[in-house]
């Protein structure tokens, strides 16, 4: 277990540095940075103190802490997929708008 914990911690530190770096580069907003840092902090807490999830799971009426993590992850993943879907549709539309503008501006020949 201790090996896993150390490996995860190393990865979390790496993730932290990336997030902060992206924020400094101005690629992500302050809110996004805080959200990501919170997420990775949660991961870190869970990996060192797995019991915290068990007590939280019991409050929510879910049997085990591990189940809570899986349910929670599923919800987050679904949400992210949805966000990506909306974004993709938006990009598709922008491409169409662009392609249309080009088609109409090339004076139609008869």
């Amino acid at each position, binding site marked *: 277990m201790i090996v896993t914990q150390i490996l995860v911690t190393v990865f979390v530190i790496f993730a932290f540095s990336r997030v902060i770096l992206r924020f400094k580069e101005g690629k992500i907003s302050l809110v996004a940075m805080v959200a990501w840092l919170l997420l990775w902090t949660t991961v870190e807490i869970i990996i060192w103190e797995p019991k915290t999830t068990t007590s939280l799971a019991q409050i929510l009426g879910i049997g085990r802490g591990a189940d809570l993590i899986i349910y929670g992850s599923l919800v987050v993943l679904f949400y992210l997929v949805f966000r990506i879907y*909306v974004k993709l549709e*938006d990009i598709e539309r922008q491409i169409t708008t662009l392609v*249309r503008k080009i*088609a*109409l501006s090339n004076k*139609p020949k*008869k």
Partner: protein
Amino acid sequence: MKLVIVIPAYNEEKIIGQVLDSLPQKITRISKIETVVVNDGSEDNTEFEIRKRKTTILSHHLNRGLGGALGTGMEYAKVVNADIVVTLDADGQHDPKDINRVIEPIIKKKADFVIGSRLRGQGMPIDRKIVNWIGNLVTFLLFGVLTSDSQSGFRALSKKALFKIKLQMNKMEVSSEFLREAKRHHLKIVEVPIKVFYTEYSKAKGQKNVNAINIFTKLLLHRLVNLK
């Protein structure tokens, strides 16, 4: 009255020439007919076939799908000040003689949006009928418009409809989107029966039945998200 015929075409080199040649040159009460083919990023000789004829061509550099192509054709129709717009498929499944029929309710000011319904006519294979029926049901459940052929590509729009209807969907979902928009703007919708030719070519070119699932999923998501 000026009529603009919009034909979206993607890789239709074999048949587009025939379709264009069979279009009517004169229609009663129509003073000017302009045909515009939207070449939707075809990789074959579709563009060459179109350019051989006296037809306006608008070229998409990238394939955007049926909805994208129809949208471009309609934008053009606005620019050239069309009074009536007719859309029809480039795969030869529609009979251009039916143009008279679909524009009649608009000329008589009895409708703003006319659907050329294939189910009221004859010639559709049974599997297509089933998929179409599901399409009609989904369109009704999601958008509250009940028609006998919600997925028809043969339709006519009045000038009012042309300016009111805003299309956002890029692909085949656009057929249902037309109806949603027509309903949203309280346009008068009328159906007229049309002939349909189901040739081996048009069957191979048209939508696969399985594709219907994608369309319905997309429509449902759009209904839920209500994307702008």
